[in-house]
């Protein structure tokens, strides 16, 4: 792709962010089409060969590229319009009878999960590795994970108290800040952060995976079965991706080594 093509492509993505709030159906469908088109032209991000090695299916590459372009637009839209632009798109029906550790992976429309967490009806503390994308509404609270082991420990300690008071905690478990637990997923190594599993051990609160899946230009958020261990988490993720390979994000692909 030439520099001119790249600029045009990025310009189109930015233009879609302008209309993502007012015309989400058009904007997200165009973004998906743009991503798939780019993949067919460049045969990269992701490459059909790599998808063949992971899923024995070359044709999934444009679908993954489409999803990733929708996700890029989602992030741009949240940055530009806040979570207000996303809340109407999100469907979430799950209910929990007590606190949960909500384990997120870099699959599907991860950044839309905040809109679902607001509807849980109980306090939720979300731990995020990078800066805030939006200002959360109660009962959702977001804390940014810091660089140092001490700051991360302080945040884990705070999350444990949150769980013990009956709140839930949400965190991406494939985001690895310091030491990691190595698991296998799709025949590759996947490093998982130990924090969620330690919180479960200390609190007795179960871990459940939570995912956001694009359905056209809307997003359905679902909770999965309870996860017992890091290997179980990797197995659950593999099952999820084998059933819906187009939910793989480039972010997760980079984590699979």
């Amino acid at each position: 792709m030439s520099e001119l093509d790249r600029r045009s492509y990025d310009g189109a993505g930015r233009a879609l962010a302008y209309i993502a709030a007012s015309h989400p159906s058009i904007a997200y469908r165009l973004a998906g089409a743009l991503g798939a088109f780019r993949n067919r032209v460049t045969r990269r991000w992701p490459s059909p060969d790599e998808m063949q090695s992971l899923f024995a299916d070359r044709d999934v590459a444009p679908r993954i590229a489409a999803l990733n372009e929708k996700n890029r637009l989602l992030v741009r839209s949240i940055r530009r319009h806040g979570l207000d632009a996303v809340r109407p798109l999100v469907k979430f029906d799950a209910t929990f009878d007590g606190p949960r550790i909500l384990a997120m992976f870099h699959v599907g429309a991860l950044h839309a999960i905040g809109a679902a967490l607001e509807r849980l009806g109980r306090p939720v503390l979300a731990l995020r590795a990078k800066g805030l994308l939006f200002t959360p509404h109660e009962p959702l609270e977001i804390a940014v994970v810091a660089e140092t082991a001490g700051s991360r420990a302080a945040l884990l300690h705070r999350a444990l108290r949150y769980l013990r008071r009956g709140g839930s905690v949400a965190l991406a478990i494939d985001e690895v800040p310091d030491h990691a637990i190595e698991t296998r997923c799709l025949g590759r190594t996947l490093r998982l952060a130990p924090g969620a599993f330690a919180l479960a051990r200390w609190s007795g609160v179960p871990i459940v995976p939570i995912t956001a899946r694009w359905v056209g230009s809307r997003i359905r958020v679902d909770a999965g079965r309870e996860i017992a261990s890091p290997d179980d988490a990797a197995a659950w993720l593999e099952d999820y991706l084998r059933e819906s390979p187009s939910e793989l994000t480039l972010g997760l692909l980079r984590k699979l080594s």
Partner: protein
Amino acid sequence: MNDNITRGVHRILGARERGVELRDDLPLGPNGLGLDSIALVEVVLECEEAFGVTIAPEVLALPNVTVGQLVGQIRGE
């Protein structure tokens, strides 16, 4: 400093890091005992249980929190 709290904290830390000379100015994390984030929380939880106190999470966020600072927090200093 050779009181029950200090001895108790040393016992908890010593069970993890045998053979290390525990001084008040020894950091719990990098450049000291080298405890990672999970181990730091576990030490705090053990201290809370052993001494019946609540330790503020912010203590762990102090830059290079030391053995002495942890003891001080338990004492309520």
